[in-house]
């Protein structure tokens, strides 16, 4: 173990693309954590998706040994935190394991909304924040302006911000010195009963469940019987170590240290983020503050395109869940889509990640139904229930009131896009709380219903601001709303997978848009197909697909049988990718279209 005064635990806060991973790589490289040859670019983001999207999904740490200018060797624990609002709780636990943070800001782009959210969280944890202005060698770099922005927007003293270019290796030593000199050492008492925070966990095929911990008090050793205070389970520690970033086993982890343990745990579900780990016998009595049960915010149905893949989907979801206890799933049977799963996610990005991993890592073709949020229904008999799936909507006459989740959204944008962003928020039933200007930028704060955001709010925001607006949100609870169930009828039959709960004021435009999209996406059949959007018995939008008039092979003789048969085979294969509904074959794109309905 290392003496408390020689430990520094810190995280890096940065907006996507502001250079967090590159800086982390440089720190590892300079302190000798990895040789040049071993240093794959951006060591910390392990998953393909993390690397491609430049986001971190799982928290990771790396321990660096740094001999500072004072001649002492320090143990630096770099905590790489997830960088997205969907993972806000995970972020808060990672931050709670640290005493300070590097705030990395792009010298050309300045402060962004996501940076703000995380920096405020970090401040709430009483962190010492070291501003780092990165990419100072870019032609467009304006470090002085960015400094002013940090002071004005965040209220941090940026006069001694460290100037770096992680890419070119400029200022790395200065960053390390700043960490040692400015970030306080952790506190803790070796003689108190063990108390460690479970920061994150993941499944490793060789080691089983690996748990990232921050020891607060006491010592963690191999052979200890430990107890998860929230989970209530007891386990035998069989490995203790740290990441450099390769795994290194250690005899023990002392107070203030960050490292990992394994304890013969089979499922990550048992290792809940934020739980307190203590000894099974003679352990601490009081858990660490801040623990929360993970709750799904966004739901959608996942169905295999080919019904025969259902078992494979079940297996794959099960495997993914081994490593991610934060999404939930239960079997669902849709009349249109057959068997699948209703899944709950922390947010839209989380949904996309899971969907993408299923498609990519498990080679599954999936139909994703429109995402929906959780509504709370108060029934006329006074009882309440939660609605996760529009298809489960009870008879409206039995519903007294419906409540929907709202969020507080902070949008940060160059001011030339402000007008269209305000319009977007207004169209989505937003309530403006605040509008401030800083330099050439505006920060707007809106209250928005989450169900308006899960549609394509983020895509729209990006497209109207040409990618410059940044967005962050927090949940602010449920509010009553005039919500109605909109059904889509194809050939006079309701298609359950396309039904959705919408605000009454949005029903008409959304119904019209969806009918128009479906008209383009459903191929002509041999008969006319009406497509209708309806609330109850009232049709609010209607389109018609005219009947197919001609589809026949003109010339077909002996030699053409094989060719014609291939055509029929292809036709049949194609049908597998469609869903039968009211005698109409609906292609999977039509279901996805419900997701991507712009208000253009």
């Amino acid at each position, binding site marked *: 173990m290392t003496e408390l005064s020689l430990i520094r635990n810190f995280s890096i806060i940065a907006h996507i693309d502001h250079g967090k991973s590159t800086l982390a790589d440089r720190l590892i490289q300079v302190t000798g954590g990895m040789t040049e040859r071993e240093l794959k670019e951006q060591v910390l983001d392990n998953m393909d998706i993390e690397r491609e999207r430049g986001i971190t999904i799982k928290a990771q740490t790396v321990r660096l040994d740094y001999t500072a200018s004072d001649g002492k060797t320090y143990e630096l624990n770099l905590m790489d935190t997830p960088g997205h609002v969907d993972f806000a709780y995970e972020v808060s636990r990672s931050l709670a394991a640290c005493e300070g943070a590097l705030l990395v800001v792009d010298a050309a782009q300045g402060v962004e909304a996501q940076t703000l959210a995380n920096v405020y969280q970090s401040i709430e944890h009483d962190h010492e924040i070291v501003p780092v202005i990165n990419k100072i060698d870019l032609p467009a770099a304006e470090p002085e302006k960015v400094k002013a922005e940090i002071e004005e927007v965040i209220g941090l003293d940026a006069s001694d911000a460290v100037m770096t270019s992680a890419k070119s290796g400029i200022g790395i030593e200065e960053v390390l010195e700043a960490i040692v000199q400015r970030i306080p050492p952790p506190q803790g008492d070796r003689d108190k009963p063990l108390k460690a925070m479970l920061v994150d966990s993941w499944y490793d095929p060789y080691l089983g469940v690996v748990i990232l911990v921050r020891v607060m008090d006491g010592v963690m050793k191999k052979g200890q019987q430990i107890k998860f205070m929230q989970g209530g389970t007891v386990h035998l520690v069989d490995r203790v170590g740290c990441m450099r970033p390769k795994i290194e086993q250690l005899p023990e982890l002392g107070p203030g240290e960050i490292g990992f343990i394994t304890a013969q745990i089979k499922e990550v579900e048992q290792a809940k983020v934020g739980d307190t780990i203590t000894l099974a016998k003679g352990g601490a009595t009081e858990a660490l503050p801040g623990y929360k049960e993970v709750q799904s915010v966004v739901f959608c149905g996942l169905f295999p395109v080919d019904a025969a893949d259902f078992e494979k989907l079940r297996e794959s979801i099960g495997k993914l869940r081994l490593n991610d206890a934060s999404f939930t799933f239960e079997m669902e049977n849709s009349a249109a889509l057959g068997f699948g799963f209703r899944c709950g996610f922390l947010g839209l990005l989380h949904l996309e990640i899971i969907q993408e991993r299923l498609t990519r890592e498990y080679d599954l073709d999936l139909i994703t139904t429109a995402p929906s949020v959780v509504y709370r229904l108060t029934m006329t008999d006074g009882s309440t229930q939660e609605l996760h799936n529009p298809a489960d909507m009870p008879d409206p006459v039995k519903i007294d009131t419906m409540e929907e989740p709202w969020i507080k959204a902070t949008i940060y944008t160059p001011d030339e896009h402000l007008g269209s962003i305000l319009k977007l928020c207004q169209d989505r039933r937003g309530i403006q709380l605040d509008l401030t200007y800083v330099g050439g930028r505006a920060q707007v704060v809106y209250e928005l219903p989450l169900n308006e955001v899960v549609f394509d709010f983020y895509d729209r925001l990006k497209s109207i601001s040409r990618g410059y607006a940044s967005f962050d949100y927090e949940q602010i609870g449920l509010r009553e709303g005039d919500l109605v169930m909109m059904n889509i009828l194809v050939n006079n039959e309701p298609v359950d997978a396309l039904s959705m709960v919408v605000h009454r004021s949005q029903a008409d435009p959304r119904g019209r848009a969806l009918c128009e999209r479906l008209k383009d996406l459903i191929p002509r059949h*041999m008969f006319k197909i009406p497509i209708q959007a309806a609330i109850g018995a009232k049709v609010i939008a209607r389109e018609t697909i005219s009947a197919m*008039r001609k589809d026949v092979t003109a*010339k077909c003789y*002996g030699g053409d049988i*094989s060719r014609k048969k291939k055509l*029929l085979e292809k036709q049949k294969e194609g049908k597998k990718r469609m869903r039968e509904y009211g005698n109409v074959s609906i292609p999977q794109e039509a279901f996805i279209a419900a997701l991507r309905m712009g208000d253009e």
Partner: protein
Amino acid sequence: MARAIYIHWPFCLAKCPYCDFNSHVRESVDIGLWERSLLADMRYEAELAGGEKLHSIFFGGGTPSLMPPALVARLLEEAEQLWGFAPGLEITLEANPSSVEAANFTSLANAGINRLSLGIQSLDDQVLRFLGRLHDAREGLAALDIAQKQFRRVSFDLIYARPGQTADIWEKELAQALSFGTEHLSLYQLTIEPGTRFATDVRQSKFTPLDDDPAADLFTLTREMTAAAGLPAYEISNHAKPGEESRHNLTYWRYQDYCGIGPGAHGRRGNKATQRHRKPENWLSAVERNSHGTQTESDLTAPEQASEALLMGLRLAEGVDLKALSKRFGIAQENLIIASRKILYSELGFVRMEGERLIVTDKGMPVLDALLGELVPAELVVS
């Protein structure tokens, strides 16, 4: 046991821009070599599928009217020796209506051809040029006239649903075609086949094919006019006075066995699908090597055969006898046609049952491919 043979002559003077048949242009053809090879290929088939007298022989191509009549005579002589000829045997030859070929009609008739199928394609010079044909309208009509004198049974082809073709234009052309008094007509809608020059032209926007909706109108018009003239459609694109149908082609559509010899020819023999080498030179060397030109001979499962029988048979106005089909392939009727779909599409007027026969109606014929996709169960088609 095959009672029909198809003989492919793969050579043309020029490749037509719409044609994706197995046709080739060659400077010269070694007639002696071709005669020996076709005879060998025929003997091979006779050994495997002989035993019954022939009901039809069909010379297709390419342009079989370019074959020397003596070669045609020699092949027929051999066929008669190998199989024997049933009474009323139909021997058809496809011919181009150029004056050079028309000059051969008498000798072809003497060689034994008793039915001629003429590739007139259009009665309009401008259209014939667009279609890349080597004859003009006058030459075509002259050839038709000679053919009608030389052969008891004459049919000719027209291509319609051409770019920009209106109902008026087609109505006039078809009325004229019906006035010549042939008892059989093949009327094809122009389709753009992959790999043809027309496919390239369309891709490069040199012309736009007629839209499906007006094409469907022309299809209906065609059926109405030919029926009124006593030559109703007995198949999607074929019209005949009752009794004058092409017996050979009915063999395909009724899914009975046929031998196919010559380059690229397909055959169905028992539960086997046979195909000859497509390229003339490859076929020749295969015959040289093996005494036959077969490239592939594959077993068809019962479901495969049943699906083939359905997709061919439902093209016919007479439809398909489901009970007989079920018995022939040992597949229960409910596994041949999806029952719920049969009901649905009967109600919608696309098909009807007549006794045991499933019949595609006038309304169903123009969308037959889509209809097959609906009616035929996937298990029959997708292995």
